[in-house]
């Protein structure tokens, strides 16, 4: 699996994925089955990105054009069932023909819009095909997107319809005249259903009952209900009407069958059109999503990941709501194991999540939330990342993380591993040892991994790349607090989240003590703690 559920949760995948919104029913279906590009599919991947680049340019040049395209896409119906029935020679009804015509109508408009921007390469189906299909589905001018069984489909239709209408008129008028005569004779009036509802005790009931032209249909304890019985003439008309209706239905069947025969030669082109439109819809939706995060086109690099100005759209928005800014991520990861070290709350985990979302999006063919980005394609991306707040959750968390890690380490293929503080869920001595040992194993096996930790032992392992977050500007914090500002405010302002390479033997970050001091812990305790670190070192 390219991204398992835990990794998806850790990098907030679903929140990002929900911004990817195809507009056609086929596009939405394809989204559900969409696979990432895998190693070996680099050319297809590059093509996907290139196509979006062209779309993006056209959309930027003419946003109105973009909105038009979207209107057409939104109106394209799913014709899978219609094509299926056509293929199997099943009977299609007017509603099916309407759906097909809608498809033809909207796809033709879509194609014309593509032409406007010299983008007709998106579809192989030529205008002539759509014109031919429209002629079949719209035999009488004017051209409209609706569908009905036009008289032009069969020469019998017009006459049959006329006959039907005239019979109905005759029957109606005949009954109306007869009913009026009854009403004049007996002084009774019909209800909406054309029945006479007469109170039982009225004298007229006897006369109505005796009249040959009327029939008693039902009675209640209060009323008797009469209807007009059909005359011989009317009966003949009604029976003819039934016959005409049957004939119309027969003709309708024949027309539908003939139409199916005429449309069937276009079947393969319709199938291609569905595929091309679905592909376009996915690409358009990718582009729209990436526009939201002002994405850049990622480039292929075989042996390193390079990100400049990267950010995680979801985290950036959460920060923005609190009035804070996301510190852009600049990062270079050569093939091998990279360790990121830094103080608590220093942004290590955020860097890991951001790296994860950028790599995952890139492999699904999206422009990525960064200023610049190059990377290889991985067979999978796996994160062992807690929620950042559960360091005290104890052995259950520890156990779950180790179990996940073991699963990945025993895999044959080397994917991108994102590890967040392995060993933190247990006691410091064992935790540090485990963290270092895992890193050493990864380094030796040349795994592509990023391990975020605050155990400085890990830095001693040979053959790893080392990054650190810059952390708190301590002197400025002291000034800030002396100026009477709050600690929370100070941390927000003065924490430097940027990543820099570890060059020499920088001192181990001890900013927990600085924070403790700022929070009011007596000076003597803090000094004692610092001395203890010095003597241990």
């Amino acid at each position, binding site marked *: 699996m390219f991204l398992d559920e835990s990794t998806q949760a850790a990098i907030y995948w679903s929140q990002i994925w929900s911004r990817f919104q195809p507009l056609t029913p086929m596009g939405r279906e394809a989204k559900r089955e969409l696979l990432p590009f895998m190693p070996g599919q680099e050319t297809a991947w590059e093509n996907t990105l290139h196509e979006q680049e062209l779309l993006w340019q056209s959309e930027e040049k003419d946003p109105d054009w973009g909105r038009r395209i979207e209107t057409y896409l939104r109106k394209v119906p799913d014709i899978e069932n219609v094509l299926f029935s056509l293929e199997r020679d099943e009977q299609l009804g007017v509603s099916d*023909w309407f759906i097909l015509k809608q498809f033809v109508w909207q796809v033709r408009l879509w194609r014309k819009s593509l032409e406007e921007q010299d983008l007709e390469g998106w579809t192989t189906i030529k205008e002539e095909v759509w014109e031919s299909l429209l002629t079949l589905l719209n035999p009488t001018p004017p051209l409209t997107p609706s*569908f009905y069984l036009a008289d032009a489909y069969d020469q019998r239709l017009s006459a049959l319809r006329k006959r039907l209408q005239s019979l109905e008129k005759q029957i109606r008028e005949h009954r109306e005249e007869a009913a009026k005569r009854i009403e004049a004779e007996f002084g009774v*009036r*019909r*209800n909406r259903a054309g029945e006479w509802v007469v109170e039982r005790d009225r004298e007229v009931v006897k006369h109505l009952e005796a009249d040959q032209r009327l029939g008693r249909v039902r009675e209640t304890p209060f009323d008797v209900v009469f209807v007009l019985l059909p005359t011989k003439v009317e009966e003949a008309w009604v029976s003819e009407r039934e016959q005409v209706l049957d004939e*119309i239905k027969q003709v309708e069947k024949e027309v539908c069958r003939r139409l199916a025969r005429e449309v069937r030669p276009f079947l393969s082109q319709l199938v291609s059109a569905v595929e091309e439109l679905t592909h376009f819809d996915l690409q358009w939706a990718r582009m729209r999503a990436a526009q939201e995060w002002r994405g850049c086109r990622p480039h292929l690099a075989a042996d390193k990941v390079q990100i400049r100005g990267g950010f995680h759209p979801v985290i950036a928005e959460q920060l923005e709501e609190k009035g804070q800014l996301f510190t852009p991520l600049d990062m270079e990861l050569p093939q091998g194991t990279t360790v990121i070290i830094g103080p608590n709350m220093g942004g290590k985990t955020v860097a890991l999540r951001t790296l994860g979302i950028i790599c995952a999006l890139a492999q699904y063919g999206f422009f990525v939330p960064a200023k610049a980005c190059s990377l290889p394609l991985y067979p999978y991306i796996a994160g062992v990342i807690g929620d950042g707040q559960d360091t005290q959750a104890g052995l259950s968390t520890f156990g779950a993380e180790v179990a996940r890690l073991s699963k990945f380490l025993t895999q044959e293929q080397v994917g991108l591993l994102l590890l967040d503080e392995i060993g933190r869920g247990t006691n410091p001595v064992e935790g540090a040892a485990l963290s270092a040992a895992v890193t050493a194993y990864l380094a030796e096996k040349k795994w592509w991994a990023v391990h975020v930790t605050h155990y400085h032992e890990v830095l001693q392992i040979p053959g790893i790349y080392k990054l650190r977050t810059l952390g708190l500007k301590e002197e400025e914090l002291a000034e800030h607090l002396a100026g009477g500002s709050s600690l929370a405010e100070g941390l927000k302002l003065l924490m430097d989240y940027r990543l820099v390479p570890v060059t020499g033997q920088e001192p181990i970050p001890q900013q927990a003590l600085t924070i403790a001091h700022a929070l009011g812990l007596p000076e003597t305790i803090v000094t004692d703690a610092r001395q203890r670190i010095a003597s241990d070192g």
Partner: protein
Amino acid sequence: MLQRVLKQGLDSLSIIGLAKNVGKTTVLNGLVAEAHEKEISVGLVSIGVDGEERDVWSGRLKPPVYVPAGSFVATAGPLLDLEGYSWEVIAETGVQSAVGKVLIARALHSTNVKLAGITAAEDAAKIDHQFRALGAQLTIVDGAYDRKAAANPFITKGSICVVGGSMAPTLDQVVEKTAELVHLFTLPECTDPTLQLAAEQAINQRQLFAVHEGKITPLPFSSLFVPEKMLRMELERKPWKGIAIPGALTNRSLSLLTRIGRPLQLVLNNPTCNFVSLAVLRRFFQIGGSISYLRRSRLLGIAINPVSPSGFSFDPQEMRERITSVCSPLPVFDIVRDPV
């Protein structure tokens, strides 16, 4: 009846029944025929249980609806295909029902059709807009199985209620049920701007909001289905003037409020959310409480059908008189006996 609707400038109405088989379709067919005579083009849609071929309650086959030439309908595609030659299929609605895609079609000549596929109020409202865009002058919503829901003012601007012999075994009960509905539907629209605002917030945020001295405060409940103790505690925090309730008001909740004893002004979304009985309502009013709606549905008239499908009938004259006495000044008409 239609005359009255048109005189009030309404362009949509629903037909609701208080029980199965009261004769809604007869009323619908009558209105459609009347509209046709007056050359008013109509759009027809039914809101009910999906795929309901037979009446859920009685098992009787549901009658098709009469559609004059030029009228619009929204129904599932396969139901149009039954008389395919009768229809010009015009638009998709975006609604996929168990019976198939719901489409909008215009009748090429007079025909009959079953209306099905729409179950959600929002879909019915959307279709009303589509009808209007196509040129329909009047949308008629047949409130099938769901009974009162179609009267939601979100969908239609007015309603006709059908009451009939199938509602209850005695005329007394039918009259009582009718009186209840009329009473609930004719409670006033809220005119207090603060309470109105509270009601908007309650509906949007699905939470109760209370008003005190012109200030709106959210209460920590999404409905009144909470333990009495909790509700009492919240209500006793301040001498609240009114409460806006997002969902349904039931006998149980209103009795609870009556027991707590605060003369509150309650605001509900619309009459279809009000499920209380007259007895419970009266007791709440006695302690000084009142109920109003953010949006009122207009009840345009009561159609009576003394006959039940089992053949049983009330005395039509007596029924008309007694129903008129509980719903005056609303017009009452007898769908079986009134001449055209």
